[in-house]
C-alpha cells in the first residue's frame, strides 16, 4: 500500500512540476465549459429562415410589414442597413433580402405605386419560402386598401363617378368597410401540436458541463501512456525492476494516482457546474461518485493499455489528445448524441465516453440516482477490466 501511495505521489509531483499543467487541469476545462454552454443552440432557439430586411421607408406601413413578418412561422426578419445587407448577400451569407424603399406609405399604395424589392440567391428554397412569407405580410397590411381600390374600379365599370370628390368619398367608404371586414375576419386555420415524443432532451448547460468534464479528464488519463513512455525513455522504469515491486503494484499505483487527480479535477468542475451554472449535480453524491470513479478508472485503464503499445512520449502525448478529442466528439460530449444519425448512435456505444456521458446526463439532466447509473457504471468498469488486463499482460519495463 505504501508503495502504491509512493508511486501515486511521485506521479503527482512529475505532473505538476510545471505550473502550465494548471492550464489543462482546470483553466481550459472551465473556459470550454463556459463557452460551449453559452454557445450551443438549444431547442428553444429560433430556427426560422433568416430574412434580411432593409427599411428605408421608416413609415407606419413599413413598420406594419415588419411586424407581420415577425409573426411568420417561416421567416425570422433581421433589420440591417442596405450596406450590411448587400455585404451579406454578396458573400452568400443571406439567401434573401427584402428592401423597403423610401416613400412606401398609404398614399403610394392608393396610387398603386408602392413597391418592394426582394433579392434572392439562385434556386434557393429558403428564398422561395421567404417570398411567400413576404407576400402574406404585404397582403395583411395592404388588403383593405386593395379592396377599396377594387371597389372603386368595379364602380367605375358600373356607371363611374360624377366627380373626383365622389370617387374619393367612395374610396373612403370602401376602405372603412374593408377594414371592418378584415378586422372581423374569422380565424380559418388552427394549429394542433402532435404528440410526437420530442427525442432531444437537451440543456446546453448540463450537456456542456458533463461533456467538458469527461473530455478534460479522459485526455490526461489517456496521457498515462505518455507517462510510461517518459519513464521508459528516462530509464526510471528499469530502476523499479531492481526493487521488490510487482508489475501490478506499479500499474495500480500509477493508475490510482492519476484517478485520484482526475477525481479532484472532476470535483472542481462539478463545483463550477453547481455554483456557477446552477446545475443540480449534488442530488445523489454517492451516484455521482460511482459514475465519476468508474469513468476515471476506465479512462486510466485505456491509457495504461495505450502505454504498452506506444514507444515515445511525443507520440503518446499526441495520440492521447487525438483519442480523447475523437472519443469525446463521438461520445456526445461536444454535441448531443440525440442529434447524431441513428446508426452512429448505435456505433458509438463501443466508446467509454458515450457511457460516461449518458451516466452523467442521467444524474444531472434526467434526475436519476444510483439505480439509474448502475448500468453505465457497470459498462465502464467492464472497459476498465478489459484494458487493464491488456495493460498488465503487455507491460514491459524496457
Amino acid at each position, binding site marked *: 500500500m505504501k508503495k502504491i501511495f509512493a508511486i501515486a505521489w511521485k506521479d503527482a509531483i512529475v505532473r505538476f512540476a510545471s505550473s502550465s499543467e494548471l492550464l489543462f487541469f482546470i483553466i481550459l476545462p472551465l473556459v470550454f465549459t463556459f463557452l460551449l454552454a453559452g454557445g450551443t443552440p438549444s431547442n428553444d432557439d429560433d430556427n426560422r429562415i433568416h430574412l434580411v430586411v432593409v427599411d428605408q421607408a421608416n413609415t407606419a406601413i413599413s413598420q406594419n410589414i415588419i411586424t407581420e413578418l415577425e409573426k411568420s412561422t417561416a421567416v425570422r426578419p433581421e433589420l440591417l442597413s442596405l450596406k450590411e445587407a448587400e455585404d451579406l448577400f454578396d458573400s452568400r451569407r443571406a439567401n434573401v433580402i427584402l428592401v423597403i424603399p423610401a416613400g412606401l406609405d398609404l398614399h403610394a399604395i392608393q396610387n398603386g405605386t408602392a413597391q418592394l424589392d426582394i*433579392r434572392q440567391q439562385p434556386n434557393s428554397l429558403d428564398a422561395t419560402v421567404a417570398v411567400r412569407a413576404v407576400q402574406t405580410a*404585404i397582403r395583411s397590411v395592404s388588403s383593405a386598401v386593395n379592396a377599396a381600390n377594387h371597389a372603386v374600379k368595379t364602380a367605375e365599370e358600373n356607371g363611374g363617378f360624377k366627380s373626383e370628390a365622389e370617387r374619393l368619398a367612395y374610396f373612403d367608404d370602401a376602405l372603412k368597410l374593408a377594414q371592418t371586414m378584415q378586422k372581423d375576419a374569422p380565424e380559418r386555420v388552427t*394549429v394542433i401540436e402532435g404528440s410526437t415524443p420530442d427525442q432531444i432532451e437537451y440543456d446546453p448547460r448540463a450537456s456542456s458541463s458533463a461533456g467538458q468534464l469527461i473530455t478534460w479528464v479522459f485526455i490526461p488519463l489517456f496521457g498515462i501512456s505518455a507517462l510510461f513512455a517518459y519513464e521508459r525513455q528516462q530509464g526510471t522504469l528499469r530502476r523499479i525492476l531492481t526493487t521488490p515491486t510487482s508489475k501490478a503494484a506499479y500499474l495500480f499505483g500509477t493508475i490510482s494516482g492519476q484517478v485520484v487527480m482526475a477525481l479532484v479535477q472532476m470535483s472542481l468542475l462539478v463545483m463550477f457546474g453547481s455554483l456557477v451554472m446552477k446545475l443540480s449535480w449534488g442530488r445523489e453524491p454517492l451516484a455521482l461518485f460511482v459514475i465519476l470513479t468508474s469513468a476515471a478508472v476506465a479512462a486510466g485503464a485505456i491509457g495504461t493499455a495505450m502505454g504498452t503499445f506506444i514507444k515515445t512520449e511525443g507520440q503518446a502525448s499526441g495520440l492521447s489528445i487525438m483519442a480523447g478529442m475523437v472519443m469525446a466528439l463521438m461520445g456526445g460530449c461536444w454535441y448531443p448524441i440525440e442529434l447524431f444519425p441513428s446508426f452512429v448512435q448505435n456505433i458509438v456505444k463501443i466508446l467509454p465516453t458515450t457511457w460516461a456521458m449518458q451516466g452523467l446526463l442521467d444524474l444531472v439532466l434526467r434526475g436519476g440516482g444510483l439505480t439509474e447509473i448502475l448500468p453505465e457504471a457497470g459498462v465502464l468498469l467492464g472497459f476498465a477490466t478489459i484494458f487493464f488486463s491488456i495493460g498488465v499482460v503487455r507491460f514491459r519495463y524496457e
Partner: protein
Amino acid sequence: MLKTFLIGIKDLRLAFRDRAALILMLAAPFVLTLGLGLVTGRFSGNNNSGLSDIPVIIVNLDNDQMGDALTDVFTSEELADLMEPVLGSDPEAARQLIDEDQAAAVVIIPKGFTRSIIPQENNFATPSDPVKIEVYANPSRRTSAGIVKSIVDEFLSRVEEGRVSGSVSIFQLMLSGRITPGQAQAAGIAMTEQLQTNTTDSDLAIKLNSSTAAGEEVDFDILAYLAPGMALMFLMYTVSYGGRSILAEKTQGTLPRLLVSPTSSSQILGGKVFGIFLTGAAQMLILIGASSLFFQLKWGDPIGVIVLVLAAVFGATGWGMFITALARTPAQVASIGTAVMLIFGILGGSFISLDQMPPAIQTFSRITPNSWALDGFTTLGLGGTLTNLSTPIAALLAMGISLFLVSVALFGKKNLVQK
C-alpha cells in the same frame, strides 16, 4: 536568400519526419473531420443543414374549389423541391403518422371549407360559420412544420383578400345604388369566379419586384465549415511546433553552430519563420487535398482557397513567433501552444458556429486567425470567389505583420538569435 530558403526547407523536412508531430498536424484534424462528418450525417445523407422535400400529408375532405386549390398549391411545380406532399383521406391515420414522426405536418381541409368562404346564393350579408383548416404539426420538426403553416397562411391571406375585396365591391355597389339587391346575385357569381382566380394568381397592392442573383445554386456542405475549422485549429499546433524548434535548436546547440557560420541572424530568423510558414501551408494543403479526395468536399474557388490558405498560415505564423518570443523553454512553447490551439479553436468557431456566441466573444474572437480564415472558407464554400475575400485576407496579413514585428522586438530584447 538561398540560406533562408535552405533553413526553411530543412525545418519543413524535420517536421514531416517527426511522427509524433504528424499525429497532431495531420492525423488528428483528419480523424476529427471524419468524426464530425459522421455525427452530422454528412456521410449518411442525413445532413440537416438545408430545408427540402419536407414531408407533408394533405387530407382534402372539402373536395371543392378552395380545398382543391390549396391541394394544388402543395403539389405545384413551384414547391416541388421544397415539399414532398402525400395525399391522404383519413385524418386519424394522418395524425398517427405525425405522432410516429413520419412527416412534418398534416394539413386537414375539412368538409364545407369552400362553402364557408364563398357566400351562398343571395346571402352576401351573412357569412357562414368559419370552417377551420387544421395543421397538425410535428413538434420535433418545428421549422418544417412552420413552413407548412406559412404556406397555408399565404393561401388563406389570398382567399381572405379576395373575399373582402369582392364583398366590399358588392356592398358598395348596392349602397351607392349602382346595382339592385337582385343584381347582387350575378355580381356574387362574378365575385366567386374572381375569388377562384385570386387563389392562384393575384395582384398585390404593393408590387413585389423580385430579382435573382447571378450564378448557380450552391448547396452548402456542412463539412465545408467543419473541415477548415479543424484544419485551422491544428494549424496553430504546427506554428507553435515550429516556434519550439527555434528554442530547441538553442538548447541542443545547433543554433550557436549556425551563428558561427557565415549566416546572419536575420537570415536564420527568416529561415525559421519561412520553415514554419512552409510547414503550415503544406499541412493545410495536404488536409484540403485529403478531404477533397476522401470526402468529396468542394472547398470552392481554387485560387481563393490557395490565397486564403497562405494568408491564414501567415497570420498563424505570426502567433507562433509571438508565443516563441514570450516563452523561455521549448516545453513552455509546447504547453502554451497547445492551450492557444484549443482556445483559438473554440473562439475561432472550430467547435461551434461563432454566430451562436455572445456578441462580446464574437468581437474578441477576431484576434484569432481561425475566425478570419473560417469566414473566408465559409464564403468560398458558399460559392464566393477571391474577390469576396478581401476583408479576411487583409485582416490575416495585418495580424501576421504586426505579430511578427512585435516578436522581432521581443527576440531582440532576449538576444535569442545574436552572434
